[in-house]
């Protein structure tokens, strides 16, 4: 599956990443190499019994019980900006508050 610079620019936009056309070209090259490498997995022969192994039997879930989480100061500690109560972010207008 070839990765075109257009695809990279589109995904970059979805991810809110800024990049120059040169960066997009070079990233397309790099991503192409990574994807080709992963594609080698397709060559592995799988029998019907190998499918997803125990994945489907895992059924991981938990009881509905609460536990205390982070203290607010700890939750806000690593934020780029905060006011002691809230995380602060640049104003975004693209989607209105629900």
């Amino acid at each position, binding site marked *: 599956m070839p990765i075109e610079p257009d695809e990279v620019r*589109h*995904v970059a*936009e*979805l*991810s*809110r990443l800024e990049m120059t056309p040169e960066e997009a070209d070079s990233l397309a090259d790099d991503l192409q190499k990574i994807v080709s490498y992963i594609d080698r997995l397709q060559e592995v022969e799988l029998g019907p019994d190998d499918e997803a192994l125990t*994945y*489907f*039997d*895992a*059924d*991981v*879930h*938990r*009881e*509905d*019980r*609460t*536990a205390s*989480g*982070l203290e*607010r100061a700890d*939750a*806000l500690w690593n934020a780029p*900006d905060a*006011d002691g*109560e*809230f*995380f*602060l*972010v*640049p*104003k*975004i*207008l*693209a*989607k*209105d*508050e*629900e």
Partner: protein
Amino acid sequence: MKVVVLIGMEVHVQLRTQSKMFCRCQVRFGAPPNSLVCPVCLGLPGSLPVPNREALLKALTAALAFGCTPPAVTKFDRKNYYYPDLPKGYQISQYDQPLGKGGTLEIVTQEGVKVVRLRRLHLEEDTGKNLHDEGTGRSRVDYNRAGTPLVEIVSEPDLASPEETRAYLTALRTLVQYLDISDGNMQEGNLRCEPNVNLHIEDGGKLIKTPIIEIKNINSVRNVERAVRYEIQRQIEEYQQKGAAVTEVERATRGFDADKGTTFVMRQKEAAHDYRYFPEPDIPPITISAAWRSEAQARVPELPPARRRRFMQEHDLGEYDADVLCRDHHTADYFEAVVAAGSAPKPAANWILTEVARHANERETTVAQLGLASARLAALIDLVESGRIARTAAVKKILPLMLDSGEDPERLMTTLGLARLDDENLLRAAAEAAVKNNEKAAADYRAGKQKALSALMGFVMRETQGKANPDTVRSILEELLSEE
């Protein structure tokens, strides 16, 4: 020009659980900002989500109650988009193996009953909340709500009017309250709806489909009806102005302005619907075992449509009264308790939907929470039905006092001297006075004018402050006037 209105609904219902969908933080409305958070719901590196069994069961219960088909295996997917209320950069949702596909919801309007088809029902996590500060150029974010379990229910575009849209939302809210999976409170945001509205216009042999408009910011049942009504009219006017050019846009989002009763354009994220869904690698797929299905099925009670029909058959109620009683399951329970306490069903329904409901509204509470014991109301209704007290006295004097004091209606009636006068001698004296003071009416009656009796009845009722038992008075008067 022929216009066909197509409305579909997307409804989000917050499930009532102790803990969040994928972590053990408490779910609570109104807690101090960012006090109910942990590494999982903040999306910190290295944290792992673990699904809440109770949320899965509640969602499965809803799927079964709507008649959806649950899959043998369900799974979660990542819905990727960037917005500050979404700390991970993706929302854990369900894409191609939702908890329910298909299903229906029955709605009641003036026109009757309609079955609305559902497309799907899936489980996902709620986002945090952004608060926009005017002026500062910044937004504040509170992640307490992030990770709250949500069920999203998507209908087919089967709704054809603002009234039907409102009825759909009412029916859906009633159902989740019957299932006891959510408070279904729109003001607190645990029930949120987004109608999709478009028109198929047949004009001059051509079919024009207007853009599908999704309406956001609707916070009450009444406003969904207002928003849809405005939007239909707006789309018709837009077509009349632009003609076929309206089809240039395929879909758009508009917000509802409750003050003006209008919808307005909302700025769009570019490529908004490119969410790049992929399976959530941190959560293995979950088998919906037969045991789970039966556990969920056991939680499905008698549902509103079935209960409504039972009320109509067992208690001989009309469809409208039965529907209104069943809209709130506590009211329906209360009605059944009053009937079980010995009241005839029709007067019980009538009292609950009029007099009792009026007091509940005045006190901004519900019929069931008014504190009026069902046995007491049944006793009051019985006093009226058996003719021992006038209905007006029961409504205006006794009922308000019962609500304030919780007193027995019969005792109140005796204490206040409101019991109907049935004393033969006393009523006979009053009737004789009536005949003596209304010679013309008495003569008219004797001459065959049946109507003249009402003047005489009125005299006795006035003399007794309305307490005389009209049946007794009538028979005494008839007896007096037939003499001679």
